[in-house]
């Protein structure tokens, strides 16, 4: 579709289905659907081209547990698509102020403007930090370009509700005696590039997604070799026997072999579950573990402490 900018008269091509356009000559952003001036509109260029992004995907998949040795060598790229997905960026602020009390909860949120996303974006995925640019027609050449399918207002409400849960919990703790409100502001529309790859290994075909700005692999499928599946299954079974045996021996010390056996057996099941999961399915999926603020601290001692505190609370 050909479009003439209302601001400078510049002429440029707009992909089918695009509702928000930014003039490549003067930067004037307009919503063609409604006609009113919309928010600032940026693009992230695909810093990782198809080849580098695909290499990243292969690298990540070939380090997964149980992948056949020749996996990355025998992998065939069938198809690749660069998706440009729309994200709205919001600043949301929940604020309550009273005598000596501040309840504050603020956040920046980048939310995909989709009802159903065509791309498996991990929950809480933080979109990375490098290099947004103004619209240039060459950026989206050969790419699939998506227009928002969910209105900005609807998304703004979602952004507010995401903050509301945390804000409300803090308000409860402060006694709720003060007036509170949540404000929000839309800071712009960003189009963000993500690579989709369809690839095959022997008779299997898979798909995978790579963030085209920082090369992070978001999602990918791979297979676990028959040897590794059998091995994992046997190891899992072995673990259960070993757990039972360890329990039995330690039970014998207190001359209570049966109880010791049970005590050793139960955790061995817990430990063997990940092994059984690896052996249960031939085709497995990798999805990115988000290094969020809270997830970073995951450690054995912390997990133990949390469970103990929880048990303390329910008061056995």
């Amino acid at each position, binding site marked *: 579709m050909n479009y003439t900018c209302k601001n400078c008269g510049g002429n440029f091509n707009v992909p089918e289905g695009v509702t928000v356009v930014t003039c490549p000559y003067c930067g004037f952003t307009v919503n063609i659907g409604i006609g009113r001036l919309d928010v600032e509109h940026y693009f992230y260029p695909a810093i990782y081209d198809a080849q580098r992004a695909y290499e990243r995907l292969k690298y990540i998949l070939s380090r997964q547990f149980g992948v056949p040795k020749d996996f990355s060598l025998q992998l065939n790229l069938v198809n690749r698509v660069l998706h440009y997905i729309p994200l709205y960026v919001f600043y949301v602020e929940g604020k309550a102020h009273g005598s000596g009390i*501040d309840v504050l909860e603020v956040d920046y949120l*980048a939310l995909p403007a989709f009802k159903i996303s065509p791309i498996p974006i991990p929950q809480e995925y933080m979109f990375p930090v*490098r290099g947004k640019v103004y619209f240039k027609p060459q950026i989206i050449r050969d790419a699939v370009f998506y227009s928002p399918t969910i209105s900005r207002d609807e998304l703004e409400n979602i952004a507010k509700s995401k903050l509301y849960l945390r804000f409300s919990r803090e308000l409860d703790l402060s006694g709720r005696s003060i007036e509170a409100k949540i404000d929000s502001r839309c800071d712009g529309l960003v189009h963000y590039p993500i690579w989709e790859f369809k690839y095959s290994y022997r008779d299997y075909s898979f798909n995978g997604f790579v963030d085209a700005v920082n090369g992070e692999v978001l999602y990918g499928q791979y297979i676990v070799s028959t040897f590794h599946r059998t091995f994992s299954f046997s190891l899992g079974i072995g*673990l259960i026997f070993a*757990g039972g045996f360890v329990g*039995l021996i330690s039970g014998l010390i207190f001359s209570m072999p049966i*109880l010791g056996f049970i005590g050793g057996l139960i955790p061995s099941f817990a430990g063997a579950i990940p*092994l059984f999961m690896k052996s249960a399915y031939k085709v497995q999926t990798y999805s990115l573990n988000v290094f969020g603020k809270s997830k*970073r601290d995951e450690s054995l001692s912390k997990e133990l402490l949390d469970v103990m505190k929880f048990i303390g609370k329910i008061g*056995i």
Partner: protein
Amino acid sequence: MSSNVAIEFKCKNCGGKLDVTPETLVAICSYCGTPNWFVESSEEIMIVPSVSRDEILKSFLTRVSEDFDLKRIADKIQIVEVAGFYIPFYFFSIKVEGFYEGWKTERVVESRGRSVQTRTRRRKVSERFSSILKVPILGRRSAEDFSLNELASHYKYSNPKAVPISDFKNFRDLKMTFLRSEIGVDEASMIARDDAGDIMRSKISSKVDELTKFVCSTKILEKSPIILLPYWYVIYSYGDSIYRVAYAGWDKHMLLAQEPVMIYHRLQYFAGVLSGCLISAFGFTSLFSWGVDPIFSILGLIAGCIVSWFFGKKLVSDVRIEGVKL
């Protein structure tokens, strides 16, 4: 920032055309090499000088030759990429004051004659608090890369000298990307006050078993200008895969490292699963032999399950994360 790209950006020295994006903080003229800063005059920006790319690489190679795990595979490690960025941060000193109420669960051992009994008792606690926190705020929206949290905490810990950007000269040799701050100082202050309250609440939550009231006020004592911190990462390959190591640019301190999982790590994790079984079995059987409170044996069982589950997950994991805790 204006969204007008019709204005051509030109070098202030030679008038050559500059390639400018909304991200541009400094554009180095490709004709004469003059740095052109795109900074509003009201903005004060400080910068922490970085070591060179070669020094980061040298530091990584030293680690490869010395690290217990990496030196075994040193001949199979290849460098894929070394990249450096200047990342904008604000640092705030914030006074947090208030009080809290909550419940604490205690176990009391009572002895009546020969029999020993343990009893749980809930006790109400309340306390006032006042504390000064130094809170780092990343000057970017919705953005958190691998180990930027560690970068900020290492900055607080090591406190390197920062210089005004106007005094900074050698960025041409560094070949690093300078990232612009997207967050103004007012919004950054709000985020910092929010974070300060959250940090305090989580500190206090760990003191009590149930927090019923938490009231606090936050006040900014001191705000820093934007500080650009140098951040580097090295991507290396081993076998068919790649791993990432992140560094602080001012002192080559390693922030976080991804490393391959070797067979002997998996053996350790296997032993870890069995140690969970052992903990559980001991806990469970001690119930009858020592006549202790049944809760301890159940706790032992649960603790054993968590330990086993934790190591079971590691047993099939694809990468290890190593970091230096501050």
